[in-house]
C-alpha cells in the first residue's frame, strides 16, 4: 500500500506540475551591468513557437526588448544597442538586431515550440556612458511575426469596407507598390463615402512586407511603467488627474472608471518631481496586490497617449491595411468575419479570478464562434489581455487573429493609421525611444496632436455585432474617420515594428 500511495502522489504531482506550465508568463530578471557597455538578464516565457516552415499560420513569436537608463537624478532615456548582432550573446535564444539600435527581438533559435526557461541574454550598448551612477530598466513585449505575403482587404459587405474599384469585392494586395484610388479593377475604393483620401503612396505600409505585431493590447501595468519613466510635465499629458493629486487618486477620473485601476502611489510635485503610478483595481489600501488589474488592457488612452507610448517603446502604429492582414492572414475574406475568421461570436461576460494575471471567463464558444469581450454587458470595461487563451485553445476559442494576436476584435478599440488624406502621410517610421519635454510624440509622418490621420478599428467591450453595427468585424470602417482625441473608456491599442 505504501508503494501504491507513493505512485499515486507522484502521478498527482506530475499532473499538478503540468497544470501550472501553460501560461505565457513572460518574466525578466537578474539584470546585471558589467564592463563599460554590457547589460545582461534572464528571460522566460511559455508557449513560444517558431513554425515558419511547417505549420499554419507559418510564423513565430518573439519578445521585443528595449532598455532605458538614467543618470543619478536624471531623466530616463533610451539605451541604444549595438546593431552588430555578433556582439550580443544568448545561451539559447536567437537575437535579431534592428537598424536603429532601438532594441532587439529575442526568439527561438530553432524551429519548434515550448517553454523558454531562464535564457541568459547579454547585450552590448552602442557608444558609451560617461563615468557616473546609473539606473537601468529592461522592458519586454511579446510579439507575433506577420510574414511577407499577399492578402485581401475588405469583405464585400461590412460598413464602408474597402473594395476593388470596378466592383464590390475584396481588394488583393500583392506588393508595397502604390495603390490608385479609382474605378478600375486595379484601383481601390470603399463601399460608402470613406474612400482613401488619395492614391496610397509606396511608402505607406500596406502590410505586404513582414512585420512584428504586439500579441496583446497595451496593459495597465505596461502603461504604468511608461508613466513612471516620464517627467512631471510629460505625465500631465498622459493622465487625466494631475500628477500632484493625493496618493490613491485614480489616473483617469475621480473614481475608478470602467475597470481602469491605475492610481497615484506617491504624489508628484508640480513641474518638478514626477508622480509614481501603480495599480489598485480593487481600490483597497494595498497597492499592486495580485488582484489589482495589472494585466487588464489599458483603456482611456487617446491617440496622443498611444502615439507617445509607441514612440517611447520604439514601435509604431499599425495601418488599417496591416490591421486586416494581422486578422485575416492569407485567407480569403468571409462576409462580416471577426478576427478569428467567422462572423459568429460569444460574449465573454462572466470573469473568474478577476483582477489577477489568470483572469478568464466561464463562456465556452461553439464550433464556429469566437470568444470575445463585447456586447454592452458586464464587465463594463476591458478584460485581461489574452483572457481567452489557454493551453488547449484553438483560434476561435482564444479569439485570436490568424497570426495569433489576441483581442483584435473586441475588448478595446485599436487606434490605427487610416486611409484619410492626413493618414496617407504616414511612412512607417518607428519611434526613436525619446520623449519630448511636452510628452507628445513627434515622429515624422505620424498623426499630430489633432489626431488627424488616426481612427478606430476592431470594436470594444461595449460594441454590438448586430445588423449594420458590427464593430468587431475585421473590415468594418464605421469609426475610421472619428478622430481619436478623447480618452474613451473603450479605446486602447498596440504597436508594430
Amino acid at each position, binding site marked *: 500500500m505504501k*508503494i501504491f500511495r507513493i*505512485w499515486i502522489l507522484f*502521478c498527482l504531482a*506530475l499532473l499538478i506540475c*503540468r497544470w501550472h506550465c*501553460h*501560461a505565457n*508568463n513572460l518574466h*525578466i*530578471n*537578474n*539584470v*546585471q*551591468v558589467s564592463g563599460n557597455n554590457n547589460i545582461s538578464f534572464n528571460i522566460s516565457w511559455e*508557449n513560444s513557437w517558431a513554425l515558419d516552415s511547417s505549420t499554419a499560420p507559418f510564423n513565430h*513569436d518573439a519578445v521585443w526588448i528595449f532598455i532605458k537608463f*538614467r543618470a543619478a*537624478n*536624471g531623466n530616463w532615456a533610451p*539605451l*541604444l544597442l549595438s546593431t552588430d548582432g555578433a556582439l550580443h550573446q544568448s545561451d539559447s535564444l536567437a537575437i535579431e538586431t534592428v537598424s536603429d*539600435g532601438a532594441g532587439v527581438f529575442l526568439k527561438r533559435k530553432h524551429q*519548434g*515550440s*515550448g517553454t523558454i526557461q531562464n535564457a541568459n541574454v547579454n547585450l552590448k550598448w*552602442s557608444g*558609451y556612458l*560617461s*563615468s557616473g*551612477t*546609473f*539606473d537601468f*530598466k529592461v*522592458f*519586454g513585449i511579446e510579439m507575433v511575426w506577420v510574414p511577407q505575403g499577399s492578402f485581401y482587404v475588405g469583405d464585400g459587405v461590412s460598413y464602408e469596407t474597402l473594395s476593388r474599384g470596378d466592383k464590390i469585392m475584396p481588394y488583393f494586395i500583392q506588393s508595397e507598390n502604390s495603390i490608385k484610388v479609382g474605378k478600375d479593377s486595379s484601383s481601390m475604393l470603399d463601399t460608402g463615402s470613406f474612400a482613401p483620401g488619395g492614391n496610397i503612396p509606396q511608402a505607406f505600409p500596406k502590410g505586404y512586407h513582414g512585420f512584428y505585431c*504586439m500579441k*496583446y493590447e497595451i*496593459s495597465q*501595468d*505596461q502603461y504604468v511603467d511608461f508613466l513612471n519613466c516620464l517627467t*512631471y*510635465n510629460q505625465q500631465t499629458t498622459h493622465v487625466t488627474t494631475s500628477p500632484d493629486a493625493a496618493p490613491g487618486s485614480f489616473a483617469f477620473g475621480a473614481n475608478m472608471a470602467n475597470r481602469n485601476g491605475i492610481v497615484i502611489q506617491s504624489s508628484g510635485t508640480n*513641474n*518638478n*518631481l514626477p508622480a509614481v503610478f501603480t495599480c489598485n483595481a480593487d481600490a483597497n489600501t494595498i497597492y499592486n496586490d495580485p488582484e489589482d488589474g*495589472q*494585466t487588464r488592457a489599458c483603456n482611456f488612452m487617446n491617440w496622443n497617449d498611444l502615439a507617445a507610448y509607441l514612440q517611447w517603446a520604439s514601435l509604431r502604429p499599425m495601418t488599417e491595411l496591416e490591421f486586416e492582414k494581422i486578422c485575416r492572414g492569407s485567407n480569403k475574406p468571409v462576409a462580416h468575419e471577426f478576427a478569428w475568421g467567422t462572423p459568429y461570436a460569444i460574449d465573454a461576460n462572466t470573469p473568474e479570478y478577476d483582477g489577477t*494575471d*489568470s483572469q478568464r471567463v466561464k463562456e465556452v464558444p461553439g464550433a464556429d464562434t469566437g470568444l470575445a469581450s463585447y456586447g454592452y454587458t458586464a464587465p463594463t470595461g476591458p478584460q*485581461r489581455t489574452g483572457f481567452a487563451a*489557454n493551453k488547449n485553445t*484553438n483560434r476561435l*476559442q*482564444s479569439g*485570436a487573429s490568424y497570426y*495569433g494576436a489576441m483581442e483584435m476584435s473586441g475588448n478595446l478599440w485599436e487606434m490605427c493609421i487610416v486611409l484619410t488624406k492626413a493618414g496617407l502621410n504616414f511612412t512607417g517610421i518607428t519611434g*526613436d525611444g*525619446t520623449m*519630448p*519635454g511636452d510628452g507628445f510624440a513627434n515622429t515624422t509622418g505620424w498623426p499630430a496632436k489633432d489626431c488627424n490621420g488616426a481612427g478606430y478599428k476592431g470594436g470594444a467591450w461595449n460594441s454590438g455585432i448586430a445588423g449594420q453595427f458590427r464593430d468587431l468585424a475585421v473590415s468594418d470602417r464605421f469609426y475610421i474617420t472619428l478622430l481619436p482625441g478623447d480618452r474613451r473608456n473603450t479605446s486602447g491599442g498596440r504597436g508594430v515594428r
Partner: protein
Amino acid sequence: MIVHKLHKYLMQLLITALLICFSMSTSAQSAYHGGKGDGYASAEISNIVLNINSVSNKFQSINLYPNPIKTSENLKINISNPMPYYLEISDLPGRMLFFKNYATENASLPLSGFQAGTYIVRIYNAEFNYFQKLIIVNP
C-alpha cells in the same frame, strides 16, 4: 504478488503519463495558446557605478565648452563625425529644460535663459550616448 502486479501496472501508467506530458510539451504549441499574464515584463537595476577613465570611443569625440560657463555665453558643442543628434539639458532634480535635435551642425546654444547652477547635458543618437555635468555661473 498483488503488490508486484500493482507496481508493474502503475509503472506502465507512469510511463504513459510521461509520454503524454512529453508529447504535450514538445508538440507544436500553436499561435493560439496562452495563459497567465499580459505578454509583458520589466526589470530594473539601480545605482550602477560606471567608472570610465579612458574611453576608446570608435564613434565620436565630443567637445562641450566652456565649462564652467557664464549665463552670458554660448555653449558650444563639437562632434567629430557630423551626424544628427539630440541635445538635452536637465537640472539635477531631473527636469528637462531644453531639448533640440540637430542635423549635422555643431551647436552654439545661448544660456541666457538659464539660472546659475549645475545641470546635466546629454548628447545622443543611435550611435552614442554622452553625458556631461555643466556648471553655469553668473557673469
